[in-house]
């Protein structure tokens, strides 16, 4: 008689595992988004600048990241870089790094589009007041650009939450990996991945509504000159 280790239903410990996964997903995304925004600001400013040695590397970074799969970026960071640099990267930080790199490239384009949406006359006016580049950016351009940047940035964060599921391939126990573990234990794939999908939906749907709402409420009203 072979003992049957297969559970035929989900119990409260399984719910706890899913909750732990959900928390880890949120941690991954929050860190990835926060660091990603900072890098995106730098890269986006470089991309929007007129100096070749600044915008060329920024453009190359954006293109290469946007034209390669996140899965590959994750593999490069987790498997390839440690060999090259002879360092060890914990799974969680590899996940954060991949999400940061990937998110920052898309976000940098949003930053650039935001900066370029501010008219030339704003620059001229600020310069005629004797402001330097940092001052113009800080006090004139960015405050106006941010209105244009917020709706697509919220949209991007939805993508980030969904993309964080890819970190599960490194066996980091975020929501998708937690689902996989339960699936292997119970073979109740429909139920388990159904629940996982619902949890992702609960994370993303409010963000979707927020994106829509910001799009409507932050709509830039062009003043007639």
């Amino acid at each position, binding site marked *: 008689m072979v003992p049957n280790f297969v559970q035929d239903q989900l119990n409260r410990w399984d719910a706890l595992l899913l909750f732990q996964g959900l928390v880890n997903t949120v941690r991954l995304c929050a860190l990835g988004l926060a660091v990603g925004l900072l890098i995106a600001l730098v890269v986006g400013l470089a991309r929007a600048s007129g100096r070749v040695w600044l915008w060329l590397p920024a453009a190359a970074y954006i293109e290469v990241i946007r034209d390669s799969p996140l899965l590959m970026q994750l593999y490069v960071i987790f*498997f390839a870089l440690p060999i090259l640099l*002879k360092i060890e990267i914990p799974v969680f930080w590899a996940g954060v790094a991949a999400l940061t790199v990937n998110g920052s490239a898309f976000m940098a384009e949003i930053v650039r589009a935001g900066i370029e949406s501010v008219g030339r006359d704003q620059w001229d006016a600020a310069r005629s007041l004797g402001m330097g580049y940092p001052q113009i950016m800080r006090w004139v351009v960015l405050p106006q650009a941010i209105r244009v940047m917020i709706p697509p940035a919220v949209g991007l964060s*939805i993508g980030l939450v969904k993309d964080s599921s890819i970190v599960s391939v490194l066996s980091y126990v975020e929501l998708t990996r937690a689902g996989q573990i339960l699936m292997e234990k119970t073979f109740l794939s429909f139920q388990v991945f159904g629940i996982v*999908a619902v949890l992702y939906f609960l994370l993303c749907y409010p963000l979707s509504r927020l994106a829509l709402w910001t799009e409507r409420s932050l709509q830039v009203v062009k003043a007639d000159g």
Partner: protein
Amino acid sequence: MPGYVFQFRLVFQDFATLLEGAALTLHLSLLTLVLSLVVGTIGALCRLSRLGWLRRLATWYVEVVRNTPLLVQLFFIYFGLGQVNIDVPNYLAALIGLVFNNGAYLTEIVRAGIEAVPRAQYDAALSLGLSYPQLMRRVVFPQAFRVIYPPLCNQFIGIILFSSLVSVIAVEDLALKGKMLISRTFRSFETYMVVTAMYVVMTVTISAALKLVGRRAFRRA
């Protein structure tokens, strides 16, 4: 990089397997694009339908797909079908998953395209006595396609990139061929670099080609 010796030769010795993987990635992506366009068109017509329940159904399809990860959808389909003892090849499961996913995005793209066609075009077509299918096929779709084309190209690039996820359910695409090559050669850095570069080359070439085609096809007379 202390004392690391690059050995790209080992990777290029087996370059043929990577090319095989790239070929699978490409035809899986192309098939996905075509089938999702069909799903997306049906979805868009449902979203614009006069029947309330059809509209709600299509809206929910779009919302559910857009707010859950592709990977979870793939697992749901792949393992779920296994649970109810429907035996499908991995390739087919991957295709179903990708089409289910991209169909929702294309629903929104096609809908936006159809909505961009001015009302006057409908009135003109109706006054000429065209039926609804004729009106759609002869008047609306050709004009909508012009609007749909650029986002459709972007979506295709996205499909190529995200199709790498099918390697997780053991479809031997470029990503998986790369992993298999590493398990033979142990040159993970070199292999991942080459595979990533292959993805970049594929997407950059394809998007440039599509842009060129678009410029030719939609040149205004």
